[in-house]
């Protein structure tokens, strides 16, 4: 029997073991967000210990220096969309282990537990001040938001669902790139997602991509940079190769602010760098201006 055959058997076993993400788990996901009063964390930019509770109330922006903290996907959805408007789609995907790497499955399970997500990406229907759209959010806390088969599939499904619903798409990207543990399959997701974007775009629908910290690698080189409108959060790291790889290749230190959102806007690749506080308003304006009157 070949290896694919073995995997099919493995899949069947997985099927038996899988637990349903039921309503209870969904509620517990949201309860996780309650952060105790006295929790302090170090800001990566200014290095000061800051009260996370206050920062979160301040839209996940550091009170001291204005650093935009990396948001979890669920927080992002809560923050951007109208209350109770989000309907998650595409649940129940299972990440498999095509290259038989021993630690991979354990790693995925660990991240699943930590983030209470299935994968590094969630999408669904939502409304921004009443404007309907399909929204997809990547979570950098899940294995650095890397794009494997499941993430690629879900991104493609996002666009297909948007075509079906005739709605614009907004995607928040946060990813280290393609997931190397899935080898060539991850690479092919770049083609798959780009092709989905092209299909959606050819039909005349709007796609807004919002690049958040960090967006690098295979995600930058596919759907993240194909938006009709590309927005970004301040100081987000955006690039194809990671800064460390570039430093190793050229053997010199990179200049300050290299590959940051403002730098890329200066080079002409991003439409606008938008502060997180204005993001919802800006997105609503864009959606409103692109509303299709039937």
């Amino acid at each position, binding site marked *: 029997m070949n290896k694919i055959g073995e995997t099919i058997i493995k899949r069947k076993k997985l099927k038996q073991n899988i637990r349903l993400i039921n309503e209870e788990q969904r509620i517990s996901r949201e309860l996780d967000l309650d952060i105790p009063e006295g929790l302090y964390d170090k800001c990566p930019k200014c290095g000061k210990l800051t009260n996370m509770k206050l920062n979160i109330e301040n839209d996940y922006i550091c009170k001291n220096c204005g650093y935009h903290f990396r948001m979890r996907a669920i927080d992002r959805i809560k923050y951007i969309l109208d209350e109770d408007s989000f309907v998650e789609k595409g649940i129940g995907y*299972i990440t498999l282990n095509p290259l038989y790497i021993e630690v991979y499955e354990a790693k995925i399970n660990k991240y699943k537990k930590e983030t209470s997500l299935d994968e590094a990406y969630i999408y669904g229907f939502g409304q921004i001040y009443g404007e309907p759209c399909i929204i997809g959010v990547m979570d950098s806390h899940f294995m650095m938001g890397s794009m494997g*088969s499941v993430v*690629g599939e879900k991104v493609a499904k996002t666009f297909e669902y948007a075509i079906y619903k005739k709605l614009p798409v907004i995607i928040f990207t946060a990813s280290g790139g393609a997931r190397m543990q899935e080898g060539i399959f991850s690479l092919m997701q770049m083609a798959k997602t780009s*092709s989905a974007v092209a299909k959606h775009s050819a039909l005349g629908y709007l796609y807004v991509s919002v690049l958040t910290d960090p967006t690098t690698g295979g995600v930058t080189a596919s759907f993240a940079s194909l938006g009709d409108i590309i927005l970004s959060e301040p100081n987000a790291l955006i690039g*194809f*190769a990671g800064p460390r790889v570039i430093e190793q290749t050229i053997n010199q230190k990179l200049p300050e602010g290299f590959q940051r959102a403002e730098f890329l806007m200066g080079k002409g690749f991003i439409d606008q760098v938008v502060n997180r506080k204005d993001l919802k308003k800006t997105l609503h304006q864009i959606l409103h201006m692109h509303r299709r009157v039937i």
Partner: protein
Amino acid sequence: MNILDKERRLQALEKNINDLGDSKSISKLVEEVENFKKNEMTKLSSWDRVLLARHPKRPKSRDFINYLAHDFIEFHGDRLYGDDLSIVGGIGTIDGIVFTIIGQQKGITVEENIQRNFGMPHPEGYRKALRLMKQAEKFNRPILTLIDTPGAYPGIGAEERGQGFAIAENLKEMSRLTVPVIAVVIGEGGSGGALALGFANEVLMLENAIYSILSPEGYASIVWKDASKAPLAAEQMKITAADLKEFDVIDDIIEEPFGGAHFNPNQTFEKTKKCIMDTYYHLSGIARMELQYQRNAKVRNFGFLQRFNYDNLKEVQK
């Protein structure tokens, strides 16, 4: 002992025979060489294939193009910024049919390699490729791409000019093309830099070529923090033509002569030409929109995952 050592050993053995002239022991030596060829040189590990794919003597894109299309005319520049020599592009006739040919070109000598940036394209290279592909679309010409790159270049200039954006644009536009696109991986196919030319209707691959998400060295240094474990990584990553054929990522494998493409380049070129033309005649019968659909439907199926079936679950719960 990897394939390069074996190659050197074979050369030493053959030199011995030549030196001996017509001595008695020659038959014994010939036998030894034959045995060595049969037993040692034919069993290739994944790492051996990586070494062969990077072999300095391995035929490069330009060699393929010169053999395939004698009347090749090269077109330079992306009409936006500059000309990238690590990607060669132009038009040429293969078996009486005009193709747009785009290939990633490594150098042979050190100077040429520096000029060609070791086959690692900058954004302007990808934009040149895209320009030529759109031109092909206009004149309804089939497109042939030859892939041989360690990856897109990670440097300051490349980032400033939007490496990721250029590759993404290529992928998006290639998915809308309505002409036959044939990609051949002739050497190293490294990550997004290779895929930017590899989004094709049919992907062919030489037997000893590799196609991977990152180099085995990169993989080893991420997983084991040790780049010297690259041979192990090559095994684990499943990057050879045979593995990829099993995954259905590529469509056909082009056989190479004994010892790799550089042992007998002309035979390799001939086989490649035959395979390309077979594929072309297969694709030329398909309608233009159908070609676009086929290319997208093909990538749509890539992925190794499973979706949980909720209908089954309800039964289980009952």
